[in-house]
C-alpha cells in the first residue's frame, strides 16, 4: 500500500475530494485542527483505503464503500435545521442533559445552562477557543493517525465535534446524552471529532445515540478521544440505529490512568456497514475496563467490532463480552486483541464472543488475538458460533408456545444478558425494549424519531 503508484481508486477519490474541499474545510475550522490536516492526508496516502488484504480490515471492505463519489458539506450551515421539530428522544424517565450533533457539527441551539459546576460541554471549536490547554491534553496525544486510515480520514475532514470536561472530584449524576444526527438531501460524508477529559476522581455516564433523519446514504466518521485520569469513572453507551444505507465508522480511543474504571457498551440495531474501533490503554495500575456489545443484524447489514486492549501497567482488569444475532445475508465480525505488555504482571484479561446465526446465509467471523509478554497473568478468550438449541425450542413448544414466539424468547434470552451490565436503568429498559422490537422486526431505524422518513 505504501507504493503511491498502487493507490486504489477509492483512495484517489478521497484525495481528490479533500483537495477540492480543502479551502472550505479550513475556512470553517479552527487552526488547531487545520494544522494537522496535511499530515493526516500524507498518512492516509501512505495507508490508502484498506483493501481486504490489510489484516485489520480483512472482513470489512472499505474499498467498496469509498469507490464512489462522496460529497462533503464543509459549512456549519449544514447543522442549521430545526431539530426540535423533527426529533424527540422517547426514552421515558431518562433524565439526561441532551446534546445534539448534526452531521458532525455541534448543534447551535443546545441548551446546557443547567450543567452543574465543574462540568463543561461545548463544541470542539469553542473548546479550542476557550479551553485550549484542556483539549491539548487529549487531542492527538494518545492516538496515532499513521496507524489507521479511517483515523487519518477523520484528521483530514473533521471540522467540529464535542468537548466534554469533568473537573476533579466532580460527580455528574445525570447522564449526558449525545444524539448524533445525520441529515441532508443528498448522500454525504460527515466527520466528527470528540474529546472527553475526566479529571481525577470524577465520574460521568455518556449515552451516545447515532441516528439518521433522512434516507440518504451517509458516511459517518466519528472519532472520540478520551482520557480518564486517576480514580475517575466513565460509562459510554452507544446505540447505533441509522438507516441501512449508512456507513458508520466509529473510533473510541480511551486512555486510562491508575484506579480508573471504564465501561463501554455498543448496541447495534440498524446501519449498513458498521465498524467500531475500540482501543483502550490501561496505563495505570488497578485500572478496570469492561466492554460489552450486542449486535442484531439482518438483510445485507455488516457489523464489525474491532477491539484492542493494551495492558500497559500491572494489576489491571479487562473484561469483554460481545454477542451477535445474525440473520438474512448479514455479516458479523469480531476481532479482539488483548496485548499484555512486559511489566504488566497480575493482569486479568477476559474476552468472549458468542454469536447466533439464524439463517444459512448469515455469516460470522470471529478472531480473538492474545499477545502476552508477561508470565504472571490470567487471560482467557472464547468464541462460539451456533444456532438455536433445537431441544430447548421443542421444550418451549411442547408447553404451547408457538414456534416463532419460542424462537424469539430464546434469541432474546441470548441477547439480553449483555444488557444487564448497563448502569443507567431507564436506558437499559429502553434498550431492552428496542432490542425486543428489533428482534421482532417491529422497529425502524427511526424509532425514536418524530418523522418517519425510513420506515
Amino acid at each position, binding site marked *: 500500500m505504501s507504493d503511491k503508484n498502487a493507490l486504489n481508486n477509492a483512495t484517489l477519490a478521497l484525495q481528490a475530494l479533500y483537495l477540492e474541499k480543502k479551502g472550505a474545510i479550513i475556512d470553517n475550522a479552527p487552526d488547531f485542527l487545520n494544522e494537522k490536516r496535511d499530515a493526516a492526508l500524507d498518512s492516509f496516502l501512505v495507508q490508502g483505503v484498506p483493501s481486504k488484504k490489510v489484516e485489520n480490515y480483512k472482513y470489512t471492505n472499505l474499498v467498496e464503500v469509498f469507490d464512489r463519489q462522496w460529497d462533503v458539506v464543509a459549512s456549519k450551515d449544514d447543522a442549521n435545521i430545526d431539530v426540535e421539530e423533527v426529533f424527540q428522544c422517547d426514552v421515558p424517565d431518562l433524565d439526561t442533559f441532551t446534546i445534539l450533533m448534526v452531521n458532525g457539527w455541534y448543534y447551535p441551539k443546545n441548551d446546557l445552562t443547567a450543567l452543574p459546576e465543574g462540568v463543561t460541554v461545548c463544541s470542539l471549536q469553542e473548546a479550542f477557543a476557550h479551553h485550549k490547554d484542556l483539549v491539548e491534553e487529549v487531542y492527538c496525544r494518545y492516538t496515532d493517525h499513521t496507524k489507521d486510515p479511517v483515523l487519518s480520514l477523520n484528521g483530514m475532514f473533521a471540522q467540529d465535534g464535542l468537548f466534554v470536561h469533568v473537573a476533579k472530584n466532580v460527580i455528574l449524576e445525570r447522564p449526558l446524552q449525545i444524539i448524533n444526527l445525520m441529515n441532508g438531501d443528498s448522500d454525504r460524508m460527515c466527520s466528527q471529532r470528540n474529546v472527553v477529559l475526566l479529571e481525577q476522581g470524577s465520574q460521568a455516564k455518556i449515552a451516545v445515540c447515532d441516528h439518521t433523519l433522512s434516507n440518504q446514504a451517509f458516511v459517518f466518521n466519528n472519532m472520540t478521544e478520551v482520557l480518564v485520569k486517576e480514580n475517575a469513572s466513565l460509562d459510554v453507551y452507544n446505540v447505533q440505529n441509522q438507516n441501512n444505507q449508512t456507513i458508520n465508522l466509529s473510533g473510541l480511543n480511551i486512555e486510562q490512568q491508575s484506579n480508573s474504571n471504564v465501561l463501554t457498551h455498543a448496541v447495534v440495531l440498524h446501519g449498513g456497514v458498521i465498524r467500531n474501533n475500540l482501543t483502550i490503554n490501561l496505563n495505570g495500575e488497578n485500572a478496570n475496563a469492561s466492554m460489552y456489545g450486542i449486535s442484531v443484524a439482518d438483510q445485507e447489514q455488516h457489523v464489525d467490532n474491532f477491539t484492542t486492549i493494551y495492558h500497559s501497567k500491572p494489576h489491571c482488569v479487562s473484561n469483554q463480552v460481545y454477542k451477535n444475532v445474525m440473520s438474512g445475508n448479514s455479516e458479523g465480525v469480531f476481532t479482539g486483541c488483548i496485548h499484555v505488555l512486559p511489566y504488566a504482571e497480575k493482569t486479568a484479561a477476559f474476552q468472549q464472543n458468542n454469536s447466533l446465526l439464524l439463517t444459512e446465509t448469515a455469516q460470522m467471523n470471529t478472531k480473538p488475538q492474545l499477545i502476552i509478554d508477561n508470565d504472571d497473568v490470567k487471560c482467557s478468550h472464547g468464541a462460539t458460533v451456533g444456532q438455536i438449541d433445537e431441544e430447548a425450542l421443542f421444550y418451549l*413448544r*411442547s*408447553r*404451547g408456545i*408457538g*414456534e416463532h414466539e419460542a424462537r424469539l*424468547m*430464546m434469541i*432474546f434470552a441470548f441477547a439480553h*444478558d449483555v444488557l444487564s451490565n448497563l448502569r443507567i436503568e431507564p436506558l437499559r429498559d429502553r434498550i431492552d425494549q428496542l432490542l425486543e422490537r428489533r428482534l421482532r422486526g417491529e422497529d425502524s431505524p427511526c424509532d425514536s424519531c418524530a418523522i418517519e422518513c425510513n420506515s
Partner: protein
Amino acid sequence: MLKIKDLRASVEGKQILNGLNLEVKPGEVHAIMGPNGAGKSTLANVLSGNDKYDIIGGSVDFGGNDLLDLSPENRSREGLFLSFQYPVEIPGVSMVNFLKTAVNEHRKYRNLPPLKAGDFLKMMREKKELVHIDSTLTNRSVNEGFSGGEKKKNEIFQMAMLQPKLSILDETDSGLDIDALRIVANGVNALKSKDNATIVVTHYQRLLDYIVPDYVHILYKGRIVKTAGKELALELEEKGYDWIKEEMGE
C-alpha cells in the same frame, strides 16, 4: 380421549415402534412398562410431536383431532402434556416469563384474554405449593442449575399450571429420591380428575406404588404385548423382563 392405532415410527432411520395400539379414556391411569430399548420414550416423544422422530404409519386420534397432524404447540394447547425424562435447561428465559407465555398462549387458543398479572401470580403460588417447589426456583431461568429432583418437580408444576387433559410422564421417577418421588406422585394424584387421564411411562414398579394405574401395559420391541391390571407391575418387579422375552418365544 386417545386412540393409537398401528403406530409405527423410527428415529435416525431405525424403526422403534412396530404397530402399537392403545386406547385411553378420561379418568384412567395407564402405566407403560418395558425393558430398555422397547420404545417407551419414543412413544412419549412421538405423541408430543418431537420432529426428530419419523412417523412411518398408523394413526393417533386425540379428542377427535388427528394428533399427528398438529404442531407440538397445538398438541399442548389441545391438552396434551409431556413430562420430560430429561427437562431442558434454557439459560436466560425466566421461569415466570416462560410460564406466563405458555399459559397465555393456551388461553389465546381458547379465545380467552391473557391473565392479569395478579391472577397469574396467585395461580403460580397455589400450584407451587402442590409440588413443594422452592420459591426461589421460579425466579431463575428455566431448569438452569436445578437438581435432578427439582427438574422433575418443575415438570409437575408446569403440568399443574397448564391443566392438561392427558399427561404423559416419561420416566418421571428416574433420578428421584424417595421423598421427591412421593411429592411428585402426590402432585400427580392431586391433579387427577374424572375428565383427565395419565400415561405413566416407567421402567420400574416403584412409582406405581404411589400413582396407582388402572392398566399396566408391557411394551416390547415397539408393540404392546401384554395388558393387565396393576398386579402385572408387581409380577414384573418380581420376575424381571426376561419371562416376557421367553413368552415371546426368544
